[in-house]
């Protein structure tokens, strides 16, 4: 199972706690993980990726294994530790304020 940590404000929508576990069919990528997340929690559609374009919302970041994966192609494979469930895939609100 893929472990996904979602940010505080979105937990209020899912009512599923800090971390959710997802079964992902086929290659484990940013795209496939988010597809599975939105299929399980449809109220998240539009909050992480924009409707229409599917682009990551500007103030969100994707981290895993101490790497920022926000800017890599969404079809690139995620690290093995995410695929095996050893490490979570983190969806993070970007820092704001000064």
């Amino acid at each position: 199972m893929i472990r996904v940590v979602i940010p505080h404000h979105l937990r209020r929508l899912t009512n599923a706690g800090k971390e959710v576990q997802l079964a992902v069919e086929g290659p484990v990528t940013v795209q496939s993980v988010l597809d599975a997340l939105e299929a399980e929690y449809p109220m998240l559609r539009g909050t992480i990726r924009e409707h229409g374009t599917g682009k990551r919302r500007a103030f969100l970041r994707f981290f895993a294994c101490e790497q920022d994966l926000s800017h890599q192609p969404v079809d690139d494979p995620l690290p093995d530790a995410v695929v095996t469930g050893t490490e979570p895939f983190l969806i993070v609100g970007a820092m704001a304020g000064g």
Partner: protein
Amino acid sequence: MSGVRVLVGTRKGAFILTSDEKRQQWDISGPHFAGWEMYHIKGSPADPNRIYASQSTGWFGQLIQRSDDGGQTWEPVGNEFAYDGTPGTHQWYDGTQHPWEFKRVWLLEPSLHDVDTIYAGVEDAAIFRSQDGGKSWHELPGLRNTKGDLWQPGAGGMCLHTIVQDPTDADRLFVAISAAGAFRTDDGGESWLPINKGLLSPFELPDKDAEVGHCVHSIAMHPARPDVLFMQKHWDVMRSDDAGGMWHEVSGNLPSDFGFPIAVHAHEPETVYVVPIKSDSEHYPPDGKLRVYRSRSGGNEWEALTDGLPQSDCYVNVLRSAFAVDSLDSCGLYFGTTGGQVYASADSGDSWMTIVRDLPAVLSVEVQTLP
């Protein structure tokens, strides 16, 4: 026992304030949707238990929430606001053309007649309609065909912030857009007409009486006289007696005719309220005195209402959607400030009380009169 439910949207959540018909003792619940910007919350006139809320942040975008039990529980509904067809472009700050981009829902206007029909005013300016209780949204694109390429955002963004329904004609709607003007449809949103004749904007526009481009801040109507409209423009308080065909100024003796909200008394169609703000560069009340002004003559002659409102060192603003009127026999008024206060009057504005004083900045105030 009758009462009121005041729906308050703030920069960091929503609050629901309830009272009986005396409106002296208040229960406050919230924050609902804590930490989110709540631009607007409004109940359905067709069913007071149905409430819609616009919830957004810069991080996570737009959500629409719906309650079917008077705000006790909520359910996220549709949040996809896709412009019809190829969105096209509008004028940008530098005069170039800029693509239409959805940013947020400023206003939710439930139908007077059908609990599942609701209109949404959005930024970049457009009007959407849902006919399934908010699950799906479809643009009424004829509005943007009304010289939309000439619309240009103001400092607050190019938002459609006002939707007024004609209670006698479900096909007639009035809308207002910042820095674009006022528009009317007589065919349920298929086609639209700019209704800006008589507006003069010599400080804001190169052509002071242009057909579109005026910065309209708010429009109000009394349901018994749907052809009479009152407008708070950027500068100037205006009145039309022919459904927007022609406007004339009724600012009269106001200390400033700049402001944001405008409202009409529930039972007196000639009684109008505004909250003067010093200027477009100084968004606070003149002289540090928070005064609601009332005209009982449909404009021109205004009196200051001050009892219970701060009359020194007050430098808050009252935003365009943050003033509401109930329909109890003794008409109640409510408004919220950017300083987080919500004030109420149970006597048409003669005296005011503070319901709550330390909320986040108030973006919107609506009231439901409950049986």
